[in-house]
């Protein structure tokens, strides 16, 4: 098992930095391109949610990203320092097509094997994302 933990400042530029780090980790572990793309997309959605809705773009706050890679799974956690900004109870409606936001969770749900929102120990929101590597490849083959 390999575990990576990075903490990013709550600024727009951190998204690029986080993506570069994530891409490098996934390449290091030879994660197949389509799964790597799905992981990057899903983690980026959680990261932007943390920055915009969790930390409310406050520069003094941080976002922690943890990646755990095993032969069977890739797990990612994105933890903000805001108040719990998402209704944890269930589904969210499909946004108005002309809305500029509100699509991130639908994208995460589409690509992740499992997606869990919970409170972090520090009081912010923790988004736990899991990809079952075997199941992901099988679903791609069946498509």
């Amino acid at each position, binding site marked *: 098992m390999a575990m990576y933990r990075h903490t990013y400042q709550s600024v*727009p*530029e951190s*998204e*690029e930095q986080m*993506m570069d780090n994530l891409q490098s980790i996934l390449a290091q572990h030879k994660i197949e391109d*389509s799964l790597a*793309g799905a992981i*990057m*997309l899903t983690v*980026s*959605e959680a990261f*932007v949610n943390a*920055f*915009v809705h969790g930390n409310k773009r406050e520069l003094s706050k941080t976002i922690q990203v943890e990646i755990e890679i095993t032969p069977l799974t890739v797990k990612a956690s994105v933890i903000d320092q805001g108040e719990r900004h998402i209704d944890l109870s269930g589904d969210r409606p*499909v946004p108005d*097509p*002309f*809305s*500029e*936001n*509100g*699509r*991130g969770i*639908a*994208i995460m749900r*589409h690509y992740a094997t499992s997606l869990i929102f919970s409170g972090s120990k520090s009081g912010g929101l923790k988004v736990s994302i899991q990809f079952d590597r075997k199941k992901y490849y099988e679903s791609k083959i069946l498509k």
Partner: protein
Amino acid sequence: MGTNAKEEGGVVIINLDGRLDLASGTALKEQIKGFFEQEKYSIHLNLSGVEFINSSGLGSLVSIMKVVRLKKGRLTLSNLASYVQEIFDITQLSHIFEIYAIEEEALNSYNTVSTS
């Protein structure tokens, strides 16, 4: 994300490459705002070089489209890679954007509309 722009037949053509996310989406909106200030509302975006797009990038495109529609202009997209097209499909945005397979087809559609 890199962009370069040119004009052809009254249409502003912008080639996008790299990642289209929160920061680059904001930069793209700023770039296009410059064309809006010149009353240019026919915009074509060639996405052939886009290797990544997330909901923030999509939100930027929706924002641009809303201005264009308000001004009775057009926003067309072309050359979407399959994974980019998939994200448009998942979010049901394929239905509200004018998406063409290739840039030439999109630009021809401007001629068709203007002469009919």
